């Protein structure tokens, strides 16, 4: 018998526990973490406030400065961080299973580049079309994302057959480069003020200014969430192999389409809200898998919750580390994510 000690690590040992118990513990643990992040992050800032006072119902809201700062000034930003973090992390998990590639990210499929191009065009055109709670830039970014997703989807699907993940990956990467070139061109043609705004948008920003933009993308995220809820056990089998999944009763073509469309939807909503914030979609799923094991029924909800906490924490760092100057949150996630990504590559090799 070969030595077994090195391969039996904690999460694997814990997979011997019943799934029901693992799922419950995970939801409880990571849910608490996400909730704690959302409650504690608004307390930090230029003005010190107290959580007890903010939730003190005996003081009228109009007179409760702590509550106003907590709920009106800081909560939208924290909530945006939580939602975007959860969406990107969950989309990362789904795409990594769909592409059977642990290094895939929500931005691998060209959706974010399409979204960025849409936003760039809206910024440099100074467009003023608003749609409900969506202002022109997020709206254009959504349109860009949908166009990119539609192109990749059309290229990779054939009627009645499983998707070609190779085409999916190559089309996504190609589209990313193509749109990036167009983005550079749009920036080159723009004047200084517009160019600065486009660059700032590309860095990602969770300062959404209120609850309206969040409400604008929430319906899209809820639809994506509903799809994420039915996917996990099929994703487990899909990540083992398409043929294996088919012989275990998974409708492969349908699962792949649902996975692609829901991940694209979640990604486009997140990017429309806060710009393309990198690395969340890869760092979080990997960290979570190390802790919970790889079963998607546990790893997917855990990644969403951990992603929420992670991005709220990153944004907290972004707005405090050089205060009063604010570091773009995309730079913070990249600072953590870049080295982590390389570590993953080296570890795999």
């Amino acid at each position, binding site marked *: 018998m070969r030595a077994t000690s090195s391969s039996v690590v904690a999460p694997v040992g814990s*997979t011997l526990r019943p799934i029901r118990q693992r799922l419950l513990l995970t939801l409880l643990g990571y849910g608490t973490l996400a909730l704690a992040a959302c409650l504690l992050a608004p307390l930090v800032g230029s003005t010190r406030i107290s959580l007890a006072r903010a939730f003190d119902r005996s003081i009228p809201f109009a007179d409760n400065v702590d509550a106003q700062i907590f709920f009106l000034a800081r909560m939208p930003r924290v909530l945006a961080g939580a939602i975007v973090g959860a969406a990107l992390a969950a989309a990362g998990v789904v795409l990594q299973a769909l592409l059977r590639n642990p290094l895939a990210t929500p931005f691998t499929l060209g959706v974010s580049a399409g979204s960025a191009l849409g936003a760039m065009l809206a910024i440099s055109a100074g467009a003023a079309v608003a749609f409900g709670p969506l202002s022109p830039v997020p709206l254009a970014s959504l349109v860009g994302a949908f166009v990119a997703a539609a192109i990749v989807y059309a290229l990779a699907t054939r009627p009645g057959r499983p998707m070609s993940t190779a085409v999916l990956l190559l089309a996504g990467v190609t589209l990313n480069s193509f749109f990036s070139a167009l983005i550079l061109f749009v920036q080159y043609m723009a004047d200084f003020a517009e160019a600065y705004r486009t660059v700032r948008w590309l860095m990602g920003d969770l300062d959404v200014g209120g609850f309206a933009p969040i409400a604008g993308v929430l319906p899209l995220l809820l639809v994506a969430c509903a799809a994420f*809820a039915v996917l996990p056990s099929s994703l487990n089998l899909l*990540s*083992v192999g398409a043929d*294996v999944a088919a012989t275990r009763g998974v409708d492969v073509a349908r699962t792949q389409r649902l996975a692609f469309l829901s991940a694209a939807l979640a990604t486009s909503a997140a990017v429309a809200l806060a710009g393309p914030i990198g690395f969340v979609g890869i760092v979080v799923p990997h960290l979570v898998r190390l802790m919970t094991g790889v079963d998607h029924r546990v790893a997917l909800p855990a990644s969403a919750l951990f992603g929420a906490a992670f991005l709220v924490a990153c944004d907290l760092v972004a707005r405090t580390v050089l205060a009063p100057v604010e570091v773009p949150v995309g730079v913070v996630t990249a600072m953590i994510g870049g080295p982590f990504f390389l570590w993953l590559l080296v570890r795999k090799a």
Partner: protein
Amino acid sequence: MALQLQQISFEYGPTNGFAVRDVSVVIERGSLTGLLGPNGCGKTTVLKLMAGVLRPERGTIAFDGRALADIPRRELARHIASVPQETHPAFDYSVLEMVLMGRHPHLGTFALEGPGDLAIAYDALAGTGTAHLAGRTYMSLSGGEKQRVVIASALAQQPDVLLLDEPTASLDLAYQLEVAALLARLNRERGVTIVVATHDLNLAASICRTLVLVRGGRVLAQGATDAVLTGDTIRQLYDVDADVRFHDRSGHLTVVPIGRIR
């Protein structure tokens, strides 16, 4: 009969020609059938057609008299399970997780496996001699262990029919014999109907009671092993001159290849 293929034809693309042409095969319930033929002859395609992974362009496949195309995928997976040549998961699942995935067709979308499913999984692990590996990760296993775990996963589906694609191809002699003995035992003790595609003629001779010989996407011969496995058919199948003799100590036919026929 468990599976009946009638005049099946299949092509992978309009320009690739037929991978399988006018194939008619009958797999009896409780049988252990070997699927023999040279590389690229269509063995794997036939297995995928039997599993319902591929749909034939022409002809019909029936399971227990019902057209395969009319059986929902999940229901079909409760009757027919497959073991591919090699299985490479994208993530490092534990052995128990791999085997529990075999319960998928028996569970609803949101249902989690319960104690009953766990018992079936451990039974499948025990049946393949891999119970001691339950807590290991799949990727840390040797080739032979992986193959047996995947077979356990297929057994957890509690199928009537088990299809295996060259299950011994990457295994050393000891593991080859072990997997062969496992298949014979599953067939004998659990009554699982087994179809195994293989290049190992001696393995086929030792465990298979019936053989189907395939060449160029067509069925060359099928029938009882003793009747079908002859020097003549091997020459037609592989262009190889071989001695086929009954071997007293092993109690089955053995094939000794002599040389290639130009």
